[in-house]
């Protein structure tokens, strides 16, 4: 499903980072562990098609993604990869509904209101459709950002430190949501964290040194 082979990234300050080969099968849920500065975010960006590595190949569903043209890679990412960031980062000038329509349209799909309703329902924020992000609580915003990541039924759901700013209770809620969403959308879940609280909830672990 996802295959990393001999991936090396070169930083601006000329130091380079070689990553171990890594194979992820469909619908697996992985935890990416490592101290801060070990390259978690870099690796996630490489897998998400946001950062072209110096060497090596990244294949998703047998497609070597960095062989795609820039435009096709953008489209591929929009359609197949959902990304959740540490903070929600919704577009402030758009309502919740518009943020989700934007995600559908930018990926090249038609607007699908039924799907939006379904996803918002599954996250218990159906009534927030017409609200602007600034009027939502941090937790609600995080849910919307999860909705945005899964709206196009991606094959990979990537989360970068999704819980680092949350307390224990919310950490559990968010992790449960992520797992439930990736299961219901039949997506691979890939969570990068240095958060020890989450260690035990995943069977697959990939550690960076």
């Amino acid at each position, binding site marked *: 499903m996802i295959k990393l082979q001999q991936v090396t990234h070169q930083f601006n300050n000329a130091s380079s980072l070689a990553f171990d080969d890594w194979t992820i099968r469909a619908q697996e849920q992985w935890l990416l562990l490592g101290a801060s500065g070990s390259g978690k975010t870099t690796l996630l*960006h490489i897998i998400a098609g*946001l950062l072209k590595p110096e060497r090596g190949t990244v294949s998703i569903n047998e497609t070597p993604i960095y062989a795609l043209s820039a435009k096709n890679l953008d489209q591929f990412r*929009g359609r197949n990869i959902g990304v959740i960031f*540490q903070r929600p980062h919704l*577009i402030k000038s758009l309502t919740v509904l518009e943020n989700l329509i*934007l*995600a559908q349209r*930018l990926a090249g799909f038609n607007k699908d209101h039924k799907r939006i309703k379904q996803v918002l329902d599954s996250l218990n924020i159906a009534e927030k459709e017409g609200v602007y992000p600034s009027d939502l609580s941090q937790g609600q915003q995080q849910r919307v950002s999860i909705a945005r990541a899964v709206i196009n039924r991606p094959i990979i759901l990537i989360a970068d430190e999704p819980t680092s700013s949350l307390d224990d209770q919310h950490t559990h809620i968010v992790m449960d949501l992520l797992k439930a969403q990736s299961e219901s959308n039949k997506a691979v879940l890939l969570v990068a964290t240095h958060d020890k609280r989450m260690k035990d909830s995943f069977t697959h672990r990939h550690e960076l040194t």
Partner: protein
Amino acid sequence: MSPLKISWKSILSKPLSSALNILLVAFGAGILTVLLLASSQVIEKLNNNSKGIDLVIGAKGSPLQLILSSIYYIDFPTGNISLAEAEKVIHHPWVKRAVPLALGDNYHGIRIVGTDTNFVKLYALKVSKGRFWERDFEVTIGSKVAEEQQLSVGDHFYGAHGLTGSKDIHKDHAYHVAGILEQQNNVTDHLILTNIASVWRMHDHKDEIHDQHHQEEKEITTVLIQYRSPMAVVLFPRLVNQSTNLQTASPAAESTRLFSLIGVGLDTLQWFAMLIMLIAAISVFVNLYNSLKERSYDLAIMRVLGASRMKLFLIVIMEGMMISFTGALLGIALGHVLLEWIGLYQDSSHTKLSGFFIIPEEGWLIFGGLAIGFCASIIPALQAYKTNISMILAKN
């Protein structure tokens, strides 16, 4: 959720700075609209009124004054000339048509013009009601005069001495409205026409008391000349100057001179308007450039969601162009309203400016507005295009 809508939403999300930029563009475009509309209307009116008139002959004085008083009826005449002296030149073979004018009286500020049927032919006048003047003290009035003074065929009124004011009224003879002219959209809409003898007789009564001999030398104010051949353009004025004591003035030359005098002021205003537009462009640029820092994360997220570089470029460039386009449209509308408003406060009715008037140059104004928006947003748009998403997302 097209790029257009995203740009529009982004404009709406910062209403104050967007409104300021739109107003700046609108202000510049508005001034330019007023200048364009006013100058094109003035030129059109000048040309429309002097159509077919090649030369004006009158008393010595300022040639510009001669043109203003006998073609546009806005200044005072330079004085009177003797009919006998004028007769010396107006029968020359180069002259196709000579229209004598006797000015001197008014009715509520409207000039009463003593003339003959050549005037009717020169302006190709037609009556809409009644007929042309035939006997003494019969008048045919312009369409606007009938409308504004509520005069109709058969009415009587008294003229007043002078070109303005109604203190010294000629009570001896009343004018009788014989007809009303069709609307011509030139100065004739605002005139009262009669024969020259009426003007003479109106003043003869007084002259009998003061000066019995005056009747001998009949006077008129000016003669409008239409040439038969182009050769006359150079030679006829020279002939008049040599053989008589009269003054000649060419409407074309004097209009050009008048415009070169006003032109300096117009140019200054035009540069001023351009400067405002330039400031507007800089303001749009600064705004987009600054907001790009805040929005860089938004734009990076859009890239994550599948937007191409080109799409981000379009989103930013459209934001600038929408602001300047809205501003240009608003400015043009404001310009029209302003000009109509100026027109309401103008006292001389036949030089009135109108806001209900569209010229092709306004299309260029809209195009100019779009171009300003494009220029102001090209650098921010290129930056959005070149955004390194991974770096922005990693900064967090």
